[in-house]
């Protein structure tokens, strides 16, 4: 017992002060991409050619980058001869509408807004989610799981992952939704009482990600269910998921 207390003392207090303070992210972290279209020669397609998932398209001299299929691999930025494309350190990337993830270099980023006031009243100060991995590779799952550790301490915001769908207010889905998980996912969804908020975390869950086009998978959860929050990344950084959840409940605006 004394040993446990001493260890606790030496390990110290480790919960991040997020959202008030953001911990330093790796200098090589690839967050929200930014591009300066004025640098792009009209017929250049180097970036779209370098992209493994077709997330970047170039047409009529305009660049569009879909964060919903982007793996944040950085191959486009590395290939760009004009240095027109860079990855910022911005981890806040969750949105409420699918097309909000398609960047065209113009306008501010449409950060996720809170759930409708009626819904928030219904939920009170708690949000309980059932997580379903439907073909997820265990990276999105791991970085969702980590939110419940002492570093993030998700429960202090009233958010909790629960075992039974009957106890949940909504669903957080990871993975491209494999054909073999389609039934189990739908059954879990149906077992959750209203309002049944749906969150798609990671490129796979949003669009099928690198598996889009495979006949073994559906192209993400949006093909089957209405989605309330999209969290891009491959996998999304835990802070990106946390930011999305906090925005959804109106804790961050």
């Amino acid at each position, binding site marked *: 017992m004394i040993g446990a207390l001493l260890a*606790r003392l030496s*390990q110290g207090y480790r919960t991040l002060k997020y959202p008030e303070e953001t911990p330093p992210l790796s200098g090589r972290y690839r967050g929200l991409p930014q591009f300066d279209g004025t640098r792009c020669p009209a017929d250049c397609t180097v970036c779209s050619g370098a992209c493994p*998932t077709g997330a970047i398209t170039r047409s009529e001299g305009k660049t569009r980058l879909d964060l919903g299929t982007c793996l944040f691999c950085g191959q486009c930025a590395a290939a760009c001869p004009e240095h027109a494309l860079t990855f910022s350190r911005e981890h806040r990337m969750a949105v409420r509408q699918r097309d909000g993830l398609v960047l065209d270099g113009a306008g501010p980023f449409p950060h996720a807004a809170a759930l409708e006031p009626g819904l928030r009243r219904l939920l009170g100060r708690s949000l309980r989610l059932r997580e379903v*991995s439907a073909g997820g590779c265990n990276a999105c799952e*791991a970085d969702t799981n*980590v939110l419940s550790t002492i570093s993030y301490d998700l429960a202090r915001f009233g958010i909790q992952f629960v075992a039974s769908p009957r106890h949940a207010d909504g669903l957080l889905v990871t993975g491209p939704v494999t054909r073999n*998980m389609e039934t*189990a996912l739908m059954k879990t969804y149906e077992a959750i009482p209203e309002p049944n908020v749906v969150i798609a975390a990671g490129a796979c869950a949003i669009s099928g990600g690198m598996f889009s086009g495979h006949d073994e998978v559906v192209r993400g959860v949006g093909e089957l269910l209405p989605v309330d929050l999209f969290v891009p990344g*491959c996998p999304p950084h835990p802070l990106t998921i946390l930011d999305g959840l906090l925005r959804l409940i109106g804790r961050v605006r």
Partner: protein
Amino acid sequence: MNTACGAQAFNCIPVHLSEIPVLSLALFREHVVRRVAENGRLVSLFGSPCGSGVRLYAVLGTADSGGFTVLAADPGDRYPALTPDCAQASWFEREIAEQWGIRPDGHPWLKPLRFHRSWRAGHDAWGRGPGEPIEPSVTEFYRVEGEEVHEVAVGPVHAGIIEPGHFRFQCHGENVMHLEISLGYQHRGIERRLTGEPSPRIMHYLEALAGDTSIGHGLAYCQGMEALTRTPVSFRAEEIRGIALELERLANHAGDLGALSGDVGYLPTASFCGRLRGDLLNITALACGNRFGRGWLRPGGVAWDLTPDLLGQMLDRLDRTSRDLNGALELLFNSPSVMARFEETGALTPALCQELGLVGVAARACNVGRDVRFERPAGIYRFVSIPLTTWPTGDVFARAQVRRGEIRQSTHFIRQRLEELSEGSACTAPARRPVADSLVISLVEGWRGEICHAIITGADGRIARYKVVDPSFHNWMGLALALRGQQISDFPLCNKSFNLSYCGFDL
């Protein structure tokens, strides 16, 4: 060794297909069965398209040679199953049946493994028509019947944030008589997309094959392609890859010990390790920007070199994290109530381990010295060895103890590499096309155990077959058997002590 009955191969050294003898089925069967019985092991057994049919390749690991023996045979549409005489072949033969529609006659439990359609139109091992639906786990299950015998079905969706799989327990009261594990829910169709016209997604597929083993599978791919394209890799790059692989091991072992601690209700270590695992992932992120090491490796070396400044930062973080980790583990291993739950739970014998061909932590916990870094080293491990960690009791305690030992060894290895990293270039671009008509076996000791990628090239140098064996493929059966005679309430603890991959198995 009698090379007339098989080609000698070594980790990451290509063999020309013409050197691999194509035996009659009877001889093929006899050799595989005999060598596995003589303390050998089935590293891989798979089908590969050949003309209009399919050729079987068996990769046998012999205990003493440091290499493999590779044999081939042409089975036609059916052949006498190896499984009745060689338990290790069981899931491989089910896989061959499912992928290619080849029937191993006499297989005692021939069911689909991943529940997908055959890759050869018109060939289905179960005679299913093209329109017939294939649903996961809709199949026969082993059943025990009798008074007070009951069945418990769990999954695919489990209580926590974990991947899906289905478990069927046959119980008598609280005691498990048999556990059958049915997977395939995570099948994304990766393997068949690794062949043919090179896909720009190939490295990404391998990094997401089992997302917690991005470095392990990524490295197996890189090594294999470098061998096939004869691309030299600098010593510095090999060292950095070693750092990446051992960091992956550290993070996962720390996470697993925390999870084991949580499962027996010992919360201090569970909480500490939850945080420490994240800190270890962040060291990887420091190096390459991604916590799982995505994008760090590439054929020819590494995409992210380490600057002197980064080396210093990584060392500093490693020192702080390992000090806290040691403290957390000391607490765990010094708690008699925890040890009482770990000891004699889910025990396997060395003989069973040998019969099933288990790998990795699970095998070393049965006192079986099986470790690619030690037995069949490639890359940095050819020059710097990591001492083997084993434990004799085969139980949850042994699996925890092996992880603890490996945390110590890996930390030491990483620290040394960070301190003494050699000069050199970080990456050489693969200059040549892969050699034609060849087979290369690329093995990596991932944190779960032996990762095997067998790559076969065609006459044009393109990949004709890419066979992945994740360590979980060998070890799921070990978990099933570890549960026999245990209380069903010990399942979570046993399961965590193996911590196998669903998507790595389902591909």
